[in-house]
């Protein structure tokens, strides 16, 4: 079974430029998460999807961040324009398990963003 796939793994951009990250969750997983991880810290939730619906985006800085999950499968996270403080690792995770909303998450390898 293929795991959660993220791309790109690394991205270096100059500030004020746009950037996009892509995530393909495990097949059949309805719940998809985007987390932000700063160096030496734990992941912090940005947005959670149940199928194609964003059910928790309270932590997403909506002035510059946007996300979508068309057709309830893969997802894209965009930053426009990027700021120096956005340098971090962006992690995607998915969860399956019908009837259970408290199971384990499966993570991708992450997309490391460096803003110069």
């Amino acid at each position, binding site marked *: 079974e293929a795991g959660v796939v993220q791309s790109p793994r690394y991205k270096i951009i100059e500030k004020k430029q746009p950037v996009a990250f892509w995530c393909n969750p495990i097949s059949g997983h309805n719940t998809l998460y985007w987390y932000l991880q700063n160096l030496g810290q734990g992941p912090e939730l940005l947005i959670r999807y149940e199928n194609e619906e964003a059910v928790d985006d309270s932590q997403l800085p909506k002035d510059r961040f946007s996300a979508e999950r068309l057709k309830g499968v893969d997802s894209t996270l965009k930053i426009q324009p990027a700021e120096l403080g956005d340098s971090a690792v962006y*992690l995607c995770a998915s969860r399956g398990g019908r009837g259970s909303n408290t199971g384990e998450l499966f993570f991708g390898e992450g997309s490391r963003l460096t803003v110069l």
Partner: protein
Amino acid sequence: SQQGEEDPQALSIQEGENATMNCSYKTSINNLQWYRQNSGRGLVHLILIRSNEREKHSGRLRVTLDTSKKSSSLLITASRAADTASYFCAAYTGTASKLTFGTGTRLQVTL
């Protein structure tokens, strides 16, 4: 925001020794999970303990949960160099399917 605070922040031991890391959390939980993250990689689920359980084992891992103290501990026995990684506790709270992570413990196991 982080749900859990982990202690210690960093731990260095020799191969063969046991490693214990602790997690304290703030609110009532449905379950508590531990994840491992190797440098530059994603997180991998290790073990889950439900709020009505007090102890759970999986191979060389032993997890305890004390809901009265809002704390959990992860014990790795007979550590190996390959156990070198960061370890995070995480918890679901309330009715939302939101998994919130702690700040992590960086474990270094030397030969």
